[in-house]
């Protein structure tokens, strides 16, 4: 019985949307069911390794219905199975429950997605910026953020040679 069948059996066939590309199996999960699905995948189906979390901004993307996507790459270490879980979110408050309690490795990965896309992970123990400096006010990988920034990179006081 495949992972898809087990998920269908547990959550019903309408809630999840499955797709496949060259043995790369994906499921799009609604936000309300997200934590249940992830917990089921870990405890019942043995996906004990969270390989990666990626953020996507679908602004100006053709035929996109939602603004943000967050993709979880899961792996079952004993069977070498892989499975991808995708959640779609929208402005103004992209909010998602944290999976830190399931996989401790989600800590920094969720911080990175928060730092770059502004997706807030509810229940994360320490949701701070991880790459950008603390006072940074924007989310630089959002598509409406200009490539050259808004001048943050030059807001430092210069040193005059006679003084130092």
């Amino acid at each position, binding site marked *: 019985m495949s992972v898809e069948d087990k998920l269908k059996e547990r959550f019903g066939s309408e809630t999840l949307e499955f797709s496949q590309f060259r043995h790369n199996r994906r499921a799009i999960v609604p936000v309300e069911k997200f934590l249940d699905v992830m917990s089921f995948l870990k405890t019942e189906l043995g996906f004990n390794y969270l390989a990666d979390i990626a953020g996507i901004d679908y602004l100006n993307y053709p035929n996109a219905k939602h603004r943000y996507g967050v993709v979880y790459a899961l792996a079952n270490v004993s069977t070498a199975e892989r499975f991808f879980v995708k959640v779609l979110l929208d402005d103004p408050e992209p909010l998602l429950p944290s999976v830190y309690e399931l996989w401790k490795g989600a800590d920094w990965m969720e911080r990175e997605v928060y730092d770059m896309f502004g997706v807030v992970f509810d229940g994360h123990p320490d949701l701070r910026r991880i790459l950008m400096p603390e006072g940074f006010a924007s989310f630089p990988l959002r598509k409406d953020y200009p*490539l*050259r920034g808004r001048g943050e990179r*030059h*807001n430092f*006081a*210069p*040193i005059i040679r006679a003084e130092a």
Partner: protein
Amino acid sequence: MAVKFPDFIVSKLDWLANQARAYSLWPMPFATACCGIELMATASSRYDIARFGSEAMRFSPRQCDVMIVAGRVVMKMVPVMQRIWQQMPEPKWCISMGACASSGGVFDTYAVVQGIDRFIPVDVYVPGCPPRPEQLIRAVLDLQEKVRATGTINAREFEGRKEFEGPAPLARQLAPDQTMIVPGDFTTATRLRPENN
């Protein structure tokens, strides 16, 4: 054949200090990217920067004479760079090595600073991506020339440099007391823009 040395020589203290300093320019390797690899190659036996007295790379800024900024500098690194520069004792000089340190290079993005001369005074620029070790050696020789031409024993030649020496627009727009990392707008961004924009 016996060589006859004079019993004493007469010279200026400035000249003596300049000779001593020019041949012992100890670098602070501020290497953040691939230019740092060329910097290491310059110190290795093939190019051997020791021939010019600059082989003593000190990883404490308090023991250094010249800061070699090798590589791109991101905005999170600017306060670190400025602090290291301030920790170096006088007299001190700065070499901006490579396209990224001098101008931002190909990295014209939100995080990368478009030239370190916007934030610290730079004495010698080295072009290249990354520069050959010979180019860095040339920069050290140029710096030696500069030390011999302008140096003074009590480093009083720096007192005259009261103006901001970097690119002009930034000097107009940013007061030194402005706080760090607050979000700005396009008027403080890197490229020269038309006045009406």
